[in-house]
C-alpha cells in the first residue's frame, strides 16, 4: 500500500478493474468527434485526433495514420538556432523532385536531364555535386553533373516501360534526410530551447544524427518506440497518447484506467490489440473466445487440438450460469457453526 494515503482511499479487493477501465474509456468515447483532421492548424504538424486515434491505438495498428516525433536537442546546442537548423536539415526527407524545376526525358535513349532549382538548392544548402554523388550510388544509372543540370543515363535498356520506372524511382529518391519523415519543423520552448517536431516517425535513423538527445526522442507510434526503446516505453507511449487524445476532446478519464489498458496491451512484451487478433482472441478459455467473435473457428480448433476450458474467466462462467470470479463473486460468505447454535 502506498504510504501517506489513507486506507479509506484504497481500492477494494476483488473490484473488477478491467471492466471499470473499459467502461470509463468506452462511455465518454460516444462524445468524441469522428473527424480525424478538423482544424488542422496552420503550419504545425498534423496528427490524428478524436475517436479514430483512440481506435488506432487500441487496435494496435502497425501503421498509424499520422506518425510523428518530437526530437529534443543535446543541451549544449539546444539554444543555438543555427546548430539546430543544421540538425533539422538532416531530418526532412527531401526527394529529388522537390529540388528541381523540371526535367526532360528521352525514354528511347534512356537519358533524363534534371533541371535543378538553384533557389531550392540554397534553401536546403546542398549543391548539384552532392546530389549527383548521391544519385551515383544507384546501380542502375550513371550520372553526370553539368552546372545546373544533372544528366541521368540508364545502364541497362530494357524497354520504355522499365526505363520510365527507373526514372520515376530516381525522381523519388531521397537526397537528404531520413526516409519516412515528410516534414520537420523547428519549434521553441518558452525558455528558448529549440526542439524539432516531425511528421513521420523513424526513431532508429534519427538516433544516428549527432546532436540529438538519443534517449529522449518522443514518437507517437508505439511500435517504433517498442523497437527502439523497449516495451515499458511503448506502454507509456500508448498511455500518454490515449490520455492526451481524450483530454483534447475535453473529456476526463483517470490515468489508472488508461494505464491498465496500456498494461494489458503490453503484458506479454509485445503490443497486442484489444480486439480479436489481440488480447480477446488469445484468451485461454475457448468459450470466452467463441462468445466474442469467430465463434465457429474457435470451437473447431478447440476440437482439433483437444483444448480444455478451465472456466476461470468472466465470460465462460456467465455462459454456463455460474457465479463469476470477480467483484463480490470472489467473496464467499460463511457462518461459524457456533454462531448457528447460538441462533437456535
Amino acid at each position, binding site marked *: 500500500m502506498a504510504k501517506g*494515503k489513507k486506507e*479509506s482511499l484504497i*481500492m477494494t479487493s476483488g473490484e473488477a478493474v*478491467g471492466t471499470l477501465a*473499459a467502461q470509463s474509456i468506452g462511455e465518454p468515447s460516444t462524445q468524441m468527434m469522428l473527424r480525424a483532421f478538423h482544424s488542422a492548424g496552420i503550419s504545425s504538424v498534423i496528427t490524428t485526433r478524436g475517436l479514430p486515434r483512440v481506435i488506432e491505438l487500441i487496435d494496435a495498428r502497425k501503421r498509424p495514420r499520422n506518425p510523428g516525433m518530437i526530437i529534443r536537442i543535446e543541451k549544449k546546442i539546444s539554444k543555438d538556432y543555427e546548430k539546430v537548423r543544421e540538425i533539422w536539415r538532416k531530418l526532412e526527407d527531401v526527394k529529388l523532385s522537390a529540388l528541381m524545376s523540371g526535367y526532360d526525358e528521352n525514354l528511347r535513349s534512356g537519358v533524363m536531364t534534371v533541371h535543378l532549382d538553384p533557389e531550392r538548392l540554397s534553401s536546403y544548402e546542398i549543391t548539384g555535386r552532392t546530389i549527383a554523388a548521391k544519385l551515383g550510388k544507384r546501380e542502375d544509372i550513371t550520372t553526370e553533373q553539368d552546372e545546373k543540370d544533372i544528366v541521368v543515363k540508364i545502364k541497362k535498356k530494357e524497354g520504355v516501360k522499365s526505363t520510365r520506372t527507373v526514372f520515376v524511382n530516381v525522381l523519388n529518391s531521397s537526397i537528404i534526410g531520413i526516409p519516412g519523415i515528410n516534414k520537420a519543423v523547428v519549434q521553441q520552448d518558452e525558455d528558448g530551447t529549440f526542439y524539432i517536431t516531425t511528421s513521420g516517425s523513424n526513431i532508429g535513423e534519427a538516433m544516428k544524427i549527432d546532436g540529438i538527445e538519443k534517449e529522449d526522442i518522443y514518437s507517437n507510434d508505439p511500435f517504433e518506440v517498442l523497437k527502439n526503446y523497449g516495451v515499458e516505453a511503448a506502454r507509456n507511449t500508448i498511455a500518454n497518447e490515449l490520455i492526451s487524445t481524450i483530454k483534447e476532446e475535453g473529456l476526463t478519464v*483517470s490515468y489508472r484506467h488508461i494505464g491498465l489498458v496500456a498494461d494489458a496491451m503490453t503484458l506479454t512484451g509485445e503490443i497486442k490489440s484489444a480486439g480479436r487478433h489481440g488480447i480477446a482472441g488469445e484468451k485461454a478459455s475457448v*468459450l470466452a473466445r467463441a462468445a466474442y467473435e469467430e465463434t465457429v473457428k474457435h470451437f473447431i480448433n478447440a476440437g*482439433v487440438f483437444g483444448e480444455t476450458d478451465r472456466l476461470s*474467466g468472466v465470460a465462460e462462467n456467465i455462459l454456463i450460469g*455460474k457465479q463469476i470470479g470477480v467483484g463480490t463473486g470472489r467473496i464467499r460468505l460463511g457462518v461459524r457453526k457456533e454462531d448457528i447454535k447460538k441462533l437456535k
Partner: protein
Amino acid sequence: MHAESIEYIKFTTISPEQIKKMSVARLIVPDTYNDEGYPIDSGLIDQRLGVIDPGLRCKTCGGRIKTCPGHFGHIELVRPVIHPEFAKTIYSLLQSTCHSCHRILATQKEAAEVKEKVAEIVSSDELDTATVLSTIEEEVGKGKIKKPKSVKKCPHCGAQQRKIKLERPTFFYIDSNKMKADEIRDWLSKISDDDLKLLGMDPSATRPEWFVITVLLVPPVNVRPSITLESGERSEDDLTHKLVDIMRINQRLEQDIDAGAPQIIIDDLWELLQYQVTTYFNNETPGIPVARHRSTRPLKTLAQRLKGKEGRLRYNLSGKRVNFSARTVISPDASLTINQVGVPQKIAEVLTIPLYVTKWNIDEAKRYLERKEYPMVLNVITKEGMRKRVTEVNREELLKLVEPGYVLERQLVNGDVGLMNRQPTLHKLSIMAHTIKVIPGRTLRIHVSACNPYNADFDGDEMNLHVPQSLEAQAEARYLMQPRDLILSPRDGEPIMALQEDELIGIFLLTREGATFTKREACSLLAGVGVTDLPKQASKGKYSGKAIFSMILPKDFSFDGKLGGEKISIEKGELAEGTITVKLVGEGNGALLIKLFEQYGSEFVNTFILNLSKLAVAVSAMMGVTVSVKDYYNADQVNKELTAIIDGTRKKADELLKKYKEKKLDQLPGYTRKETFEIEVMAELESARTLAANVLRKYVGPENNTQLMAMVKARGNILNFVQTSMLLGQQAVRGRRPQRGYRGRVLPYFTRRDNTPEAKGFITSSFFTGLKPVEFFMHAMGSRDSAMSKSLVIAQSGYLQRRLINAMQDFYVGEDLSVRDAAGALVQTIYGGDGIDPSKEKLSE
C-alpha cells in the same frame, strides 16, 4: 447451483463409433410425417429422438416434453464426405505428412528436437494451446524448426512429395488429380498418434480421420422443433429440411451404387452429398451457393445458429431474458430523494419478492399470507420447489401447510430495493439500486439529479426495473449500488450527480454579488429545504442570498479556492465571498461537493445536493427565468461590430483567394495547393463565429437570460447564442467547406468556379433574422453531415467498448492490490501504481 460442479470442459471431436454409441436410432427414411400426420419410424422425427408434442411420451426415456432431454440419432453415409469446417486442418495435415508412408515430414532427430521444444513450452507456466502454438510458430519463423510442408523428400521412405491443393471449401487435389474423401480418410487414419502429437494435436481427443464424416450425428428433435401453423400445417425447422436433403441424396447414391451406375453419376451424387453436408454445417461457407428455403430465404444451419449477435452464444447464453422486471416510461419527481424510485402501484402489484419462512418469522409470514389486498402474497413455493399461485380457494389450505423452508412471494412494498437500468448500459452507473416507493400513476419516477449517470431525460425515455430476489443480491444492491454511494464517478473521481440546468441558474441568482431577498422571500426559500431559522439581516428587512445559501452549509465548514480567476471563500459555514457556479457544484467538476464529501461523507452530500437543488429551483421560480425574443435583438453597437467582423472575414478570405490564384500561398506539407487554400480559408471563415462570440460576451451580460443560461453553463453555449442572434457562420461538410453539388458550384444559384465565402457555405444570417434560400441549403448540408457522423460515432464507439470489455473483463484487484487476469497472471503489481480507488482519487487524505 448444480452448475457449481462443472470443473472444466474438454473439447474433442466425435468418432463414428462414439456417434453410433450415442445414437438411439439409425435414420433411413428421408421424410418426417406420413399421410396420417404420424411420425415415420426411422424418419427424421422418429419418436425415439424425443418429444415435442404435448401429451406424448418419448419412446427412449418415457419422459414428457419437460423431462425428456432429447436423444441423438445418426445417418450412415454411403460415401464419406469432408467436414467443411475441418477442411483447413485436413489440408495442413496432408501437407505435413508423406503420401506414401504417412509419416510426418521430419526426421527422427528433427522430430525429437521439436518434441523437446514442445515439451519445454508445454511444461512452462503457460498451458493454453494458443500460446503453445504461437511459440512454435515463432520457432518455425526463426528457422529452428523446418516447416514440414516445405520438405521435398520424405526423410523416412524417400518418396518424392507431391503438391497438395485445397480448392475451397472441400475439394482436394494431389498433383492436380482429384482426391476422393475416402482416400483422404485412409491417409489421415494412417498418421500415427506420435506424429499427431508432434503436430500439436491430442490423439486421445481427436483422430484426424474423424474429420471425414462417415456417420452423421442427427440432433434430437428438441433442437429442431417443428411448429404447427394456424392452418394445422406443420412447418419443419431449417435443420430438419437440410437433414432431409442429406438423406435423400444419400439414399439415391446408395441405390445408384447398388444398381451399378456409371462412375460419373456416382461422383456427381457424391459431390452433391458433400454440398448438402457442407451447407448443413455452415450455410455461409465461402465458395459454394447458399442453400435456400422454398421461399428463397437462406437456411439457418448449424454455424448460423451459434454465430454472431443473434447467435446462441451471444443471444441466449451470454445474455438472458429475466423475470421480476418491469419497463415503462420515466418521469421526474422532485419529492423523491436521489436514492428512491417511484414505482406505479400496478407494477408493484405484479412484481414479487421472496419471503423466506423461518421459525423466527413464521407468524409474520402467515399474517402476510392471510392478506387479501395489496401487500399480499401471490405465490407460495413449497419445500420441494413447487410454485403454487395463491387464490381465494386455496389460501386457507396453504396457510395450514406453510412451515419453515417455504418461500412466500409477496408484492413489492415501500422500502424494497430495485435496480434501475437505462440502455445503453455504458458504465456501471447505468444500473443503480433505488429504494422503492409505490406511487399512483403509470410511470417510473426518478429524481432529476439521478438522470446524469443514466444519461436519461424525460422526452419519452423508458427504463427497466429489476427486483433482486436473493438476500445476497439485495444486500449487494443496498451496500454497493445506491446512487448516494456513487456520487463520485469511478471514471475520474468527479461528482456525477450534481446540479444541472435551471438549478445552476437558481444558485447563481441566489449567491451572486449583491443579491438580496425580503424576509418573506427568505422564509419561503428556507422553509422549502426544512430550515426554520433565518440568517442575519444584510440590511433592514433584507437578507443576502449568500447568507440564505449558507444556511444549508454545515456550521464548521470552511473552503477556500480560486476557480477560473474567481475567488471563493467559505468561512465557518458562511459564504463570505464568491458565487456558487458549475465549477463548485456542477457535474464533472464540483470542487465544493468533493470537499464536502471528504469531510462529511456521502450521506451528507446526498442530502446537500437534494436541498441545494430544491433551494435553487425555488429561486429560479421566484425570480422568473425565461428566454424571449427580446434576448435576440442586438444593440446597435453589436450590429456594427458584426458587420465589421463579416466584412473583415470576407476581406481576409479574398486576400487568401488572391494569394492562391497568384500561386503565392505557402503549401502545407502533404497537401496540394488547393487543399492548403481550403484549409486556410476554412480556418479564417470559422473564426468569424468566435469573433462574434467575443462581441456578445463584451456587450451582453447576465440580464439577458439567454446569455445567463450560457454563462452559468445551464444550457447552451455562447456559440448557440451567436448563431441565433448574430450569424450562423461557416458550414462544414466532412470538415471542409461544402464542395460538391453541381459542376463547378455547390448550388445552381452561383456562377461556376465562384470561390467566394458565400458560394461555399458561409452564412451571414442568423436564426433570428432567418436564412436566405441558398443559406438554408448550405445549412442543411452541414446538418445532414453532422447527423450522419453522429450515428457513425455511436456505432464505432459501441464496438470499441465491446472490444475493450472483452479484453479486460477478467481483471480484478487481488488482496495484495495487484491486478490479475483470470489465470492469475499479473497485469499490474499495484493497481494504478498506488492502489488508489479512482472514484476517490480526487479526495485528499
